[in-house]
């Protein structure tokens, strides 16, 4: 905790210091301390502590039902929409407690985008799906600018070629994998600083998966990405650091190579070698 704090203050104090901080090992974007989440009586997360570096990819792995999505949803406070869900502990983005009553959740969510586990395109046209966020936040002053944002986002989500001639058709009419990419395009269209991706490639073929992974690489230039995945290979390919969850606890977190080649915890080893999960 003290270590993380000092890095963060260094990073935030001034632009000059920020450039200096890139030389330092890690600039922290998201910090979680003692995060406990329960759905009604049932506790889903226990005492999760983690630091997530800016402009990097953090992968969450772990068996189904271990709380990866739950933790992801804490970071943009999507759990607020579930009435029975209670979150305690401290989560900071850029050093500010996001559960502080002063925080504007709407602004937070504009900065922390999310791609959901199940694709959920709006029942609007493909164009309107992607244009929704930029319109909402007044990111384009005219139609041409909006068109440009939409095209750019669809290209980056490698969907443009497939839909450029039918932008006015409903997004819900796309295939499952196309819908997933549409949701990715929709999320990146508002250029969030942090993008939470909950199994973004679960319905994609290997080629589309590779494109999304390229996109993730590209995005790390400016953005911080947290990705939940069930594919070890994917975690190994895209992430710098990996966190392993098991039964609601964060068991182990560290550089990806280390987690995969030399895990400290027995349970991590069992999981990545496929002994359970």
């Amino acid at each position, binding site marked *: 905790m003290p270590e993380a704090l000092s890095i963060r203050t260094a990073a935030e104090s001034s632009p000059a210091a920020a450039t200096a901080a890139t030389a330092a090992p890690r600039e922290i974007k998201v910090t979680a301390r003692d995060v406990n989440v329960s759905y009604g009586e049932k506790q889903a997360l226990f005492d999760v502590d983690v630091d997530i570096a800016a402009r990097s990819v953090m992968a969450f792995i772990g068996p189904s039902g271990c709380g990866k999505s739950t933790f992801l949803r804490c970071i943009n406070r999507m759990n607020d929409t579930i009435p029975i869900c209670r979150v305690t502990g401290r989560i900071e983005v850029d050093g500010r407690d996001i559960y502080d009553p002063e925080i504007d959740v*709407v602004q937070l969510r504009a900065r922390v985008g999310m791609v959901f586990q199940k694709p*959920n395109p709006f029942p609007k046209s493909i164009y309107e799906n992607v244009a929704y966020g930029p319109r*909402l936040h007044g990111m384009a002053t005219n139609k041409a600018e909006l068109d440009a944002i939409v095209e750019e986002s669809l290209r980056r989500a490698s969907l443009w070629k497939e839909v450029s001639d039918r932008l006015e058709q409903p997004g819900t009419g796309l295939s499952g994998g196309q819908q997933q990419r549409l949701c990715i395009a929709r999320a990146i269209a508002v250029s969030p600083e942090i993008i939470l991706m909950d199994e973004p490639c679960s319905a994609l073929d290997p080629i589309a998966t590779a494109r999304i992974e390229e996109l993730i690489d590209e995005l790390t230039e400016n953005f911080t990405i947290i990705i939940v995945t069930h594919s070890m290979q994917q975690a190994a390919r895209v992430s710098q650091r990996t966190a392993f969850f098991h039964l609601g606890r964060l068991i182990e977190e560290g550089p990806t190579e280390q987690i995969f080649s030399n895990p400290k915890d027995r349970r991590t080893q069992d999981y990545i070698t496929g002994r359970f999960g």
Partner: protein
Amino acid sequence: MTTLYFVIMVALVPVAFWAARRRAFAVVEGRPGVLHSLPTYHGLLVAVIVFIPMLVVFALGTPAVGRLAEARAVAALPSDVAADLLRRSAVMREVANVASGNHAGDPAPGIRAAADSLVATRDAGHLAVLVLGLAVAAAAFAFAYRRIAPAFRARNHFERFVRVVLMACAAIAILTTIGIVFSVVFETYRFFFDPALKGRPTVSEFLFGTEWNPQAAMRADQGDIRTAFGFVPLLTGTLLITAIAIAVAGPLGLFSAIYLAEYASPRLRASVKPILEILAGIPTVVLGFFAALTVAPLIRGWGESFGLDVSSESALAAGLVMGMMIIPFISSLSDDVINAVPQSLRDGAYALGSTKSETIRRVVLPAALPGIVSAFMLAVSRAVGETMIVVMAAGLAAKLTFNPLDAVTTITVQIKTILVGDQEFDSAKTLAAFALGFVLFFVTLMLNVIALQIVRRYREQYD
């Protein structure tokens, strides 16, 4: 006798079911896996095969017996009575009374004989129907029972039967509607084109005339008054009141639906929604006198304090109360469709940084639009078809006006006014009701078509 028939039928059907089911078990020696269809399907099929013929025998046999008995009774009457149609029907009524034992005093001997003949024929006939029904049922049972075999596809046959029954129900509903439309169209045609009808208007007089006064046409034999069937004031009155009602109920209903579905806690919603629905259960007569005795005087008082001339019965009073009446239709149905919008769509909007009201406006309402439009359509049809409130609160004056403070009348009110009391069905006045019914039907149909177009155009379909 007919009761006995039904009792036997209702008793036989389960017996057939059980017998067939046991037989199905027996033919495979208690190993149902060998059967193509489960024993229950064999049972159901045989039960149906017994039930349907029995029902048909009853449905055809009983009226036939009735007619036969009547014919016999007529034959037993003195020939001069039987020949005179008018006297015959009067005497036959008496015969029927005697036969059912409702006759006071001693009937004339001729009538007594006819009644005896009637009763004898009827009893014998009913017995015959019963015997025939049992015979048919036994034959059907034997036929079906013997066909039970491991390979027999009882399930498929039963599925086909289910489909036929469902189709028949749908067909009855549609045919009834078509029948109603045809009778209305036919009488409307008579109203406009029957040469025997005095005082009938031409189609264009009806559609474009601005004076409505069916009473004048009643005195048509005193003089030829033909300008009384102008339907325009009724249409404007209907539209005016409906517009007021929707202007009241639309926003109130929709906004309360949004509140209930999106903002209210589940507990509040669970208690408020039934209360709103009670509002839909208030008889319109009650609402009508509430409009006439409370709302209308209130409006007149207000109007006078502003120096306006308000009639004691006004379109505004009727429209306001009608609006209250249709609020539950809009709010309850809209609440249901808003609730049916998947949470994942809201989550998607929130995750992009939408506020609650932005989410509702841009995602939830468009997705719920088809349902909301149908809720509005239902409300409009209720408003257009509502009679009682208008009778009591808006008056009967067929006045061509768009002033909500005036007394107006509507299409339904005029239909009611025309047909109340004993009427002969060949005057222009009564037939005018059919013409009004026809245009009313047409107006609602058009509204529905328009709503459908709106939905198709702006529909955002989720699945």
